[in-house]
Structure formats: structure tokens, C-alpha cells
């Protein structure tokens, strides 16, 4: 029987080995390359996507566990790249090389979805699993706070 998952609102048949991590299904099978490979062991957060709205490390999540699940990648976070986090990222000139930033943004989006106004400590705790080797942490924090402010004004 055919199995599938929803990715960014569109159904995709799972036509690969069920053990294949979502990361490689996205990157090599579907050629959605916005989600990045960093460590392959869930240690760096570069591959973060949402499964049913929650941040997961796609490099250690097999596709067989994702049947009928809703996946959101950086490409699908917002229709026009205008999620408050994306806007805050631009406003604070966060990226340097930018490689980890999809994972950072997806992880932060998952945080804000459950905690609309996180404290600095809560941001640290939530974002601790996402490495940025260029060292943009100060701006990431600032951008998350700014996005949280925007979101609180929208409510």
C-alpha cells in the first residue's frame, strides 16, 4: 500500500527505504535543499524541520515514522518569506554563511508556537541544540525577541 506524508501542504509518496531519514528524502529524493546536513546525529540542529508543528531533527527521523504526518520545512514556513522570525532575521542581519539559519529559524518558530514571549533563559534552553559556527548567536537572540514582540502585538 502506498504511504505518504504532507510536506509544506502537499502530499508526497514515500517511495524510499523506510529507514531513510527525512533529511535525505527531502534533499536527495525531492530536492528540497533548504534543509541542511550538518552532523547526521541530531547534534547540531542544521536539519531542523517541523513535524505536526514541532521541531525535530530530520537527520535522525526515519520516513517510516512520518506516514500521514504534516512536515514543514524552511521553504514552507510562510508563503512569502514573511513569518515574523524571517522578518526579524532580515531586520537584524542575522546570517553570515547562513547554512545553519534554516534550522535556527525552524527551531525558533517551534519555540514561539508554544511560548509566545520566551525569557532569555528560555531562548537559550530552546536554541541550545542549534550550532552556528559563524557565531551569530547574539543576533539570533535579538531576532527571536523581536519576533516575539511582533507576534504579541498581532494577538
Amino acid at each position, binding site marked *: 500500500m502506498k504511504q505518504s506524508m504532507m510536506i509544506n501542504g502537499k502530499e508526497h509518496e514515500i517511495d*524510499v527505504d523506510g529507514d531513510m531519514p527525512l533529511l535525505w528524502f527531502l534533499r536527495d529524493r525531492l530536492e528540497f535543499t533548504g534543509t541542511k*546536513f550538518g*552532523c547526521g546525529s541530531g547534534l*547540531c540542529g542544521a536539519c531542523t524541520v517541523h513535524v505536526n508543528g514541532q521541531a525535530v531533527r530530520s537527520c535522525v527521523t526515519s520516513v517510516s515514522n512520518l506516514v500521514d504526518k504534516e512536515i514543514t520545512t*524552511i521553504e514552507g514556513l510562510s508563503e512569502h518569506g514573511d513569518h515574523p522570525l524571517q522578518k526579524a*532575521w532580515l531586520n537584524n542581519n542575522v546570517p553570515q554563511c547562513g547554512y545553519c539559519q534554516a534550522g535556527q529559524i525552524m527551531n525558533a518558530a517551534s519555540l514561539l508556537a508554544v511560548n509566545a514571549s520566551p525569557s532569555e533563559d528560555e531562548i537559550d534552553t530552546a536554541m541550545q541544540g542549534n550550532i*552556528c*559556527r559563524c557565531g551569530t548567536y547574539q543576533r539570533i537572540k535579538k531576532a527571536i525577541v523581536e519576533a516575539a514582540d511582533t507576534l504579541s502585538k498581532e494577538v
Partner: protein
Amino acid sequence: MSISTLSRRNFLKTAGVATGGLVLSVALPGNALAEKGIMKDANATLNAFIHLSDNGDTTIYCGRCEMGQGISTALPSAVADEMEADWQRVSVKQADGDEKFGPQATGGSASIRVMFQPMREAGATAKAMLIAAAAKVWKTSPDNCFAEKHFVINKTNQQKLGYGELASIAANMPVPEKPILKKKKDFNYIGTDLPRHDQGEVIVGQRTYGVDTKIPDLKYAAIVHCPVLGGSLKSIDKADALKMKGVSDVVVIPRFDIPFGSIGGVAVVADNSWTAQQAVKKLNIEWNLGDNASYDTKAYKKQLVANVEKPATLAAERGNIDTAFSNAKHKVSATYTGGHLSHAPMEPNASVVWVQKDSCEVWASTQSPADIQKVLGQYLKREPKDIVVHVAMAGGAFGRKFKCDYVHEAAVISQETGAPIQLIWSREEDMRTGYYHSINAQHIEASMDENGKVTGWLHRAAFPSIGTLFNPSLVRASAQTLGDVTDHLFGIENFRAESGDAKAHTRIGWYRAVYAIFYGFAFSTFADELAHKAKQDSLTFVTQLFDNNKNKDQQEQVQRAKKLLTSVAKKSAWHERSKLPKGQGIGLAVHYSFKSFVAMAVHVEVNGDDIKVLNVDCAIDCGQILNTDGATAQMEGAVVMGMSLALSTEITFREGAVVNSNFHNYPVMRISDMPNVRVHIADSDESPTGLGEPGVAPFAPALSNAVFAASGKRYRDLPFKPMPV
């Protein structure tokens, strides 16, 4: 024929473009580089291309490689500024590997230092030609016209012509002999905080990196290397790997014994990266480990310490250190060490290579396309120019992607299989078989008189140098490699530098800031130790060390360094440090490297063994600033990298091989450790210099000095708190 006439002749080319527009290709004058003595090859053509379509769309090519340092915004913005282009109409493209773009090897914090002036001239030349074109149309004199935001304007009647309308006419205008450059007060983009050109793509996942290259019929490869430098394959059983669904080939890659060639390994080719990675684990391999099989960094570091704590090979000498030492009121000595480091950029080594009978095409995250051309040319026995290199954005590099062993490996696999190959290294391979920052030891002895004036300084350093990549028989760093010790800006009348023995047992490579990491650490930490011994405050003491420098050739640098240190102390809480709560302290350091000056004041809180960095004030003097936000970002990043290497990261070898494997046992800094970083940029009209690396060096010594001020504990070994592996 002089370089300038050569380049003038090649200066201008016109060509139709497929879209029907007209293209003004403005080649870069070579004279600016030649005059500075940077361009050694008089026959090289130096071009920076500005493409201007008849609708006004402007493409500016960036010849230097982008890896996050922001060069592909900084340099094109200088072109656009001089050209009076509207940045909104400009798109930036990364240039392929081609000598017409000038030196593309991106390292040594050199891009802005080398290319700022030529890029400005390229823009100014284009502007002059556009003005000449408009003057021709209006039958007036060019002096009666000026350019502004993508238009040329007639001063008499305020008529306007757009750059797009003028493109084809401008292309036939004579090339001005000496383009007139703008004055600082007239800059639109230079010296501003212009955002990076590609941020919009990053935040929606559309910015592509080397690892994201997709071409038709692509096959995916993973690799495992011989864990020890110089080892070789003894036996291999491929059966289990080949049985896996989706696996098509196993390719043995012999060690290619040239700089940047493969260390030797075995690759698996499959229809996706994951399958290839799984299959690599099923290879049954035995290695001959070779001569470096007993390399053990703990023992080796001990040996380096022993080698610097006894007389070593003379590198440089001034005055008479023996007399200074025998007349000393105080004598102080200390030994500093540091470990190997792995660059660990977030994007592992990756490239796509397709070797065909008559062509070879490469897509790679790289810092040096010319080295790819050289290495692949040598391997395939083809001319370097026949290797086409598309330079991809690198997801971090920090020196690692200067070395193209991973591209060479993809070429071998492609040649063996006939398929276009994407080879991605696993994080484990990146960490275990990379090129490492030198493990190192330094020993300093100094004498002071009764006033605390430093009268003599003996500096011994031992570390396997990068030179060993090119000459493996080197047994110690050369006098030239110790040049930054000898030429340090502290004024020391009686001085001796010695180089201790240090053979290389792994590949040593440039790592962001290179030797400045440990030179900066030793100089600025030891100065603080001397200040303590002399019962002086560190700022006064170091200022005195600069004042003692009577070398006329160094006066300008000495003054800039001194001024910067003084200013960073003022920006921080240094002068109020007596009021800090118990357990807090501030440490200072200033270091001159890669022609730029960076001073830091690090404010810490120490609780037992726990070190919390609260604030970092960072003052920079890099001459005329090109992009203030880019400069600030580089300093923030340098603090983070400096903190990783000061506190926690170290590569450990045992039985010849690296023990670390991934981020769980190579603990790079994470967000919760981020201090508040404030960057202060000195206003300067000096020639601009680079900032990619200079920020790293002063952090570790400033931290050591801060921890000492806070707790009385002195850290002399990098990293201060290594993770046991």
C-alpha cells in the same frame, strides 16, 4: 608592454547577451594591484566584470570566494558606489574560477586589502564611460554631466538618461586613463551598514551552497579515509556494501601525494547520500597505518613543552639578551600551549564533479578555485584551464575549504564511474581526517629592571607548521614563520626568538587566524603576567611596552595598537573595575595580525571552575571601513570562535588517529554561552584591511587575563577546560 597597457587593451569588451540586451563588460585595471606589488605575474589579466543590460539591470561579479564573511556584498558595493549604480538594480554573482577575475584564493584576510582599490576603479571607469556616452548623445561635454543612482544627468537642462539606455553607447566609449575616484564624503554604500545581498534567500532556504548542487543523473558518494596520515589500504571486502540496494560502485582512492590531494580512502557510490553513508559502514577495511601510527597528542604536547623549555634553534636576535638577563631585577618565565583544532564549518566538505572524456566540470564550496584547477589538472593530466570550476557559496570554511582534497576525491570517483558525482563527507570524516590548526607550545622568559621596564625577552615556539604540507621533511617552524614573534609591536631591546623541534604527524592547515591564535595568546597573556609581577596595571604596562618600541618602521602600527587598547579600556568597565562584584574581572588584549588591529576587553564572572563571559568590548582599526555591519558581524563571530578554542575545543590523537568524531565530543560554543558583544570601529582614512581573522587572536589572552583578575587563577593552556575524550 606594461601591465597597464595590457589591461587597457583588454579593458573593454562588448557582447550581445542571449536576452537581447547589451552588455558592457568592464575589465579591471591591473595597475592598482601591480603598483602594490601584490600581483606578481605581469601577464595576468585582471578583470572584474560589470554587466549592464539595456534595461538597466546590473550584474556585478564577485571574484573572491564567499563563505559567510560578506565579501560578495562588500566588494560589489564598492563597485556600485563608484559607478553611481542603484544597489536595488544590482545583482551579485559569484564568479567562476578564472584568472581574469584576479587572485581568487580567499584567505589571509586579504580580499578587501587587495581588491578594494581595483574594484573602486572598475566602478569609476564604468561611470566615466556612461557619462561619456550621455555627453555624446546630448552633444555636450562630459564635464557638463554627472551620474546619480543609475542615471546620467545633464547639468544644463536637467535631462536624464538611464544606465540601461546608455549601455550600448558606453560600451564603445574610450576607456579613461585614470578614472577619478569619489571622495569619502560622497560615498553612498562604502562605510555604511549595507545588508548582505543574499539574506532574503537565506531566510527562505533558497540560498544554495556547494552541498546543494543538483545536476541531472547525479550519483551520490560517501567516503571513509585512512585514519592515519601516510597510511594505505591493506585489504578490503566490498561484498556487503555492494549488496545494498541502491549501491552501484565502490571506488578505492589512493593517497595522492601532493598538497591538497586526497589522504587516501574508499568511497561508495549510490543513488542517494544516505545509502552511500550506510554502505561505507559495511565496508570491511584493513589499513596499513604507516609511520604516524603512534601519534599521541598528549605525549606530543609534553615533548613540545620540553623542546621550548631548553635552548632551541635560533630564529632571530636583537641586542644582547644574556646581558639583559644577568642585570635583571625581576625574571619571569611561563609556558603556554594549545591543541589541534578542527575548522568544523557547518557545511561539511562537499562538491560535485563530472569528469568526461573532453571536459571536467566542478561545483564546489571552495576558497580557492585555482587550486582545484591545479590539483585536478595534475591528477587528470589536463591543463588547469580545462577544469571548469563553479564556485559555490560555502557554508562556513574558516580555512578548511582552501584545501581541495574532497574535490579531488569526487574527481577520482567520477573518472572511475563515468557519472557526475556528489561527494559529501560525513561530519565524522571531517573531524577525523581534516587539516588541523597546529598543536603548539611557547616558552617566554623576560627580564625587567627596577622600574618594571622589560629589558629582555626570550621567546621559544614549537609547533608543526603549515610548511610541512609542502615539505614534509621540515622538523621545525622556519625563522620566517616566527616572523610575527620577531616583529611583534612590543618594544624590546634585547630579544631572541628560537624555534623548537616539531615534526608533523598529521596534516596542518590554515585555521581562521592561524598562528596569531597562539602568538597572540602568549604575548598578551605574558604581558599581563609581567604587569602583575611589576605591580602595575596591565593597561599602563602594555602602553609602556609599546612606547618602548623605537623602531621607526613600526611607529605608525605601534601608535594605532596603543590607541586602540586605550580606547577599548575606556569603552569597557576597565577603569571602574575596582567596583566590580567579587568574582568578576576584566582582561585586556590587543593584537595586530593580517594588517588589522583588534583590541578586546573581556568581562567575566568566575565561580570555582565555572567561567561565564559577560561582556566583550571589541575595538577594531582596519583602516577605512567598507561595511560597518559586516565588520561588526566578523567580530561577533571571532569572539564565538575565540571562545570555543579558548575554553573547550581540541582535537586529540591517539594511536595515530583522531579520537573526536562529532559535536558531542568537539564542543563548539552554543547560544547559552553568548556574551554581550559590543564592537567599536575606529574612524580611519588608512587603506582598508581585512577582518576575517584578526578578531580571533585577542580573545583568548583577554579571557585569561580576565579570569586571573577575577580569581587569581592563571590559564596558560588552550583550551582552558578541555573535554575528556
